[in-house]
């Protein structure tokens, strides 16, 4: 009995070992295979929306709004680089990691860092733009200016003068006179952001993110760059005004 038990125990341990070992091997294989082959990762996670050839025409694309991006033109919305420039690798990785709030592009933090990095050359490979041009250096974000009643008021003036209201509306509700007729570069309807609805800013919610959006523009959309139009100070004023539209509390506090 004793002997049998011992033998059974050894057997069980041996079985457990084998199972664990083979599981470990399979696991190692799984991560290794996925991490090294960006094309496989793309096919599994990205192609359903963005299409096998990156044309933004995957089987799910039809039922999505805003539409998934067509990578073949090299037009990337969320960048740190000037208007017209290609994105840096870091820009692409940032979007993969954080996603694009308010759209179907979820944060792909379920993938490993290696997998996301492996995707970058695959995405760039879809567009001939990367053969002709290199990304320009990221734009400079100048010294930040504090949000006060005065800077918010100055920002409001810029919002009026530079006609942000034409699309985003006089109260920032995204209901300006041009709002209903806007299209992206592929002819799909696109809505200007409604600041009063909140914090789902496509390129991130920090003040620096807001600053970057109207400095770099959002390629492929009607949102232009105001880099040639606004000084560093003016951009911060506009950041604070836009923020005040999102947080009525801030305006009240600043107005005291």
């Amino acid at each position: 009995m004793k002997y049998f038990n011992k033998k059974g125990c050894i057997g069980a341990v041996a079985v457990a070992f084998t199972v664990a070992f083979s599981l470990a091997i399979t696991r190692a294989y799984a991560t290794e295979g996925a991490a090294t082959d960006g094309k496989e990762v793309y096919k599994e996670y990205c192609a359903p929306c963005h299409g096998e050839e990156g044309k933004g025409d995957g089987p799910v694309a039809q039922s999505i709004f805003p539409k998934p991006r067509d990578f073949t033109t090299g037009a990337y919305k969320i960048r740190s680089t000037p208007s017209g420039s290609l994105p840096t690798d870091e820009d692409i990785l940032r979007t993969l990691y954080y996603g694009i709030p308010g759209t179907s592009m979820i944060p792909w933090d379920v993938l490993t860092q290696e997998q996301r990095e492996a995707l970058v050359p695959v995405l760039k490979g879809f567009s001939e733009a990367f053969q002709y041009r290199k990304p320009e250096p990221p734009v400079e974000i100048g010294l930040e200016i504090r949000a006060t009643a005065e800077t918010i008021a100055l920002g409001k003036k810029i919002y009026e003068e530079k006609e942000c209201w034409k699309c985003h509306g006089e109260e920032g509700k995204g209901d300006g006179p041009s709002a209903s007729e806007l299209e992206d570069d592929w002819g799909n309807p696109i809505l200007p952001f409604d600041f009063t609805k909140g914090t789902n800013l496509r390129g991130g919610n920090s003040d620096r993110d807001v600053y970057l959006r109207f400095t770099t523009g959002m390629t492929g959309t009607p949102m232009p760059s105001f880099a040639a139009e606004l000084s560093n100070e003016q951009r911060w004023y506009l950041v604070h005004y836009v923020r005040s539209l999102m947080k009525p509390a801030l305006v009240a506090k600043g107005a005291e």
Partner: protein
Amino acid sequence: MIFNVNKNKISNKATLLISILSLTFTLTAYSKADEKRYKEIIVANGGCITGTVSFDGDIPPTKLLPINKDHEFCGKEPRPSPVLEIHQVNKGIKNVIVSIEDIFEGKHFDMSGIRPLLDQQRCTFIPHVLVITAGTTVDILNGDNLMHNVHSHCTKNSPFNEGTTYKQRLSKRFDFEETVKISCDVHKWMSAWIVVKENPYFALTDEKGRFTIEDVPPGTYKLQAWHESLGINTKEINLGPNEELKVNFSCNQK
């Protein structure tokens, strides 16, 4: 385990091969972008190609573009679309680009000192079509006392989109052969084209559809007529020394 090792070896080899391939690809790609295909020579016995691009069929009624905002600066009346302008008498089509596509040697050209203008006046781009050679910088102006978005649609060249105020000047360089559409997101009716060519053998038709291309080395070429809405027509031509060759194109709505 043995299988495992083998597979690893294979995948290592494959990775190496892929990286070598992609490296070669990158190198050739960059040289492709940098390479100049056109060579300047002294053209002796050059010929001239001249003719008319005319509309085949009844002249369609001119489309009117509604002006739905900013009436104090843009005007109120709907304005004739600049997309298809046909001369009422000879049916000549304006703004067709006639060009020789397969010419790699020819006359000297230098546009580096010239900065063509693309102006915005009363919410219309002027001119509607601009043809330039690769490497040319275009100055884009805003002559209207309101904001315009200057939005370019292209891949090889930079697809910029910039907000501009009154009297603002944007200088944009176009390095690669491409047909670039320019639009304004604020004023939907506004459109223009900047067409970038690799060689200087091109002409833009006038209001009667006439064009002339000069100093062409004798030879056999593919002559192309491009129009934004009528598309592309091509003809094979044979030009002799000092010849003045008449070539007419007849285009129709497809």
